[in-house]
């Protein structure tokens, strides 16, 4: 598997060195959007707009950007490979299509990390928010990534079957933004509990506490974040396998 990770990383670097403007363009685009969002909102409503919840909002936006980039990247990558007519060749490899997709998803964390760092800096500069970053934050960040990977595999499964999922991704990004902005941790039982059944919400809540308020979340929330991520990852893998089986039955793996 290390060999597959190595060769995928090598392919990513080759593409990056040959087409650096693609990544640079997406970074600059996202930075400009967030910078305009915060500076525009401040200009219109004054500095008191977000009040005490500014940090929570900033963390929600950052986690949304991180999670949505990861899950949409998996689906977009499958759509691109289908368009290029390469899914069948990838299926005829030792790790198989699922293995290649998983390795690429892990590597896209690196790519998205590169994308998110300048976005975070832009948000912090334009919003005036101050974020802590304790080492414990790596834990909910990891569960956020795992859960996003599961959702990405579900979307990837849809991309395998339906090939074009661009419109769905467009709709989903707003649904996710809404989901990430809701502070389930502030809700009373049972709404907070039910909210934590939704994908990624415990991870986002833990990150809001850690990064936004400098508080250490309870272990129950962290464990819940782990369970939530693993459940959605398992669902994602299962869904992707079913989708792969379906396109094999339909004979549409290589079609677009």
């Amino acid at each position, binding site marked *: 598997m290390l060999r597959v990770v190595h*060769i995928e990383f*090598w392919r990513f670097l080759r593409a990056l060195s040959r087409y650096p403007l693609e990544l640079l363009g997406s970074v600059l685009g996202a930075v400009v959007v967030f910078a305009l969002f915060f500076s525009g909102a401040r200009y219109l409503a004054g500095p008191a707009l977000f009040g005490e919840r500014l940090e929570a909002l900033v963390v929600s936006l950052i986690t949304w950007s991180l999670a949505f980039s990861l899950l949409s990247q998996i689906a977009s990558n499958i759509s691109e490979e289908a368009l290029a*007519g390469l899914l*069948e060749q990838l299926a005829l*490899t030792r790790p198989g299509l699922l293995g290649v997709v998983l390795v690429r998803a892990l590597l896209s964390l690196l790519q998205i990390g590169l994308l998110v760092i300048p976005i975070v800096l832009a948000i912090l500069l334009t919003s005036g928010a101050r974020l802590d970053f304790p080492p414990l934050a790596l834990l909910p960040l990891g569960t956020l990534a795992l859960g996003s990977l599961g959702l990405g595999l579900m979307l990837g499964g849809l991309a395998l079957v339906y090939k074009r999922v661009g419109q769905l991704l467009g709709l989903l990004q707003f649904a996710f933004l809404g989901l990430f902005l809701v502070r389930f941790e502030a809700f009373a039982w049972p709404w907070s509990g039910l909210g934590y059944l939704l994908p990624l919400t415990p991870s986002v809540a833990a990150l809001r506490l850690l990064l936004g308020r400098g508080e250490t979340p309870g272990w129950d929330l962290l464990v819940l974040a782990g369970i939530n991520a693993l459940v959605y990852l398992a669902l994602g893998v299962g869904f992707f396998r079913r989708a792969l089986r379906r396109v*094999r039955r339909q004979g549409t*793996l*290589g079609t677009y």
Partner: protein
Amino acid sequence: MNPSTQPPNPLLQAHRLRKRYPKGKGWLEALKGVSLALYPGEILTLLGPNGAGKTTSVKILAGLVEPDEGRVEVQVDGPGTWLGAVLEGSRNLYWRLSALENLIYFGTLRGLSPKEARRRGSELLQAVGLQDKAHQAVGSLSRGQQQRTALAAALVHDPPVLFLDEPTLGVDLEAQEAIRAWLLRLKEAGKAILLTTHQLELAEALADRVTILLEGEVALEGRTREVLAGSPRAVYRVELGLPLEEGDSRRTRLQALEVEVEGKVVRVVGEETLWEALRILDPLPLERVERESLSLAGLFWRVLRERRKPCSGSST
């Protein structure tokens, strides 16, 4: 391949494959019980018109399509790496990577170390005459060069089985010739090659065995030499001393026997029909009567015509 050296067990065997796809409110029967076997050191060519089931067969054998019924037995180790394939309708390669980079990438995904894949890739690009294009992006290569690179990519991990679905489609004559020569070398090296093509001359030049698929069924199969030589309904060419004019009643009678008339040349299928045709032609002067050496193209068209005759008859 010499039949006496043929191993008892084929590398790959498909038993009664059936596959149907939804089409409108009904079903399209793509394969109706197709059985195939592929031996090492031979080229098996699948022929058939569009929609005959060639690509479905190849994809089922490769594990890319699941059959509704039947099974495929593979007598080779190496999950996912026992075969290399050039698939029709696919790019097969990353156009943004160079030819060599593609070979390194796919070679590593199929079990080689990157270093080994680079070495094999360079050797193969040299073998297909593309060493000077090794560092050029595949998207900027000609169609023939892309196909030769795809063929090299299919072989980079040295698989014992090779599936080539229309590998010469849209390729110029020079590249076709290069691919043809290379496939013969691969066969000599012991590879089992399954080839589908519409280019009957290429098939005839390469195929040890031929299978003709029509409407999802095997219409004819056997060793190429044997099916060509052993056809019970040979084609006879009768050359007349004078052309048979339009409006000549003998022309109508000959056409009723499905004899082809073209000026001074009359083509007849089967010995019985030949004698009947000669009786009709009597007492016209004859220049020559000869049995035509049957080409794969001739055989293919005859099988196609004979197969379609009962269908058209039943529909009217």
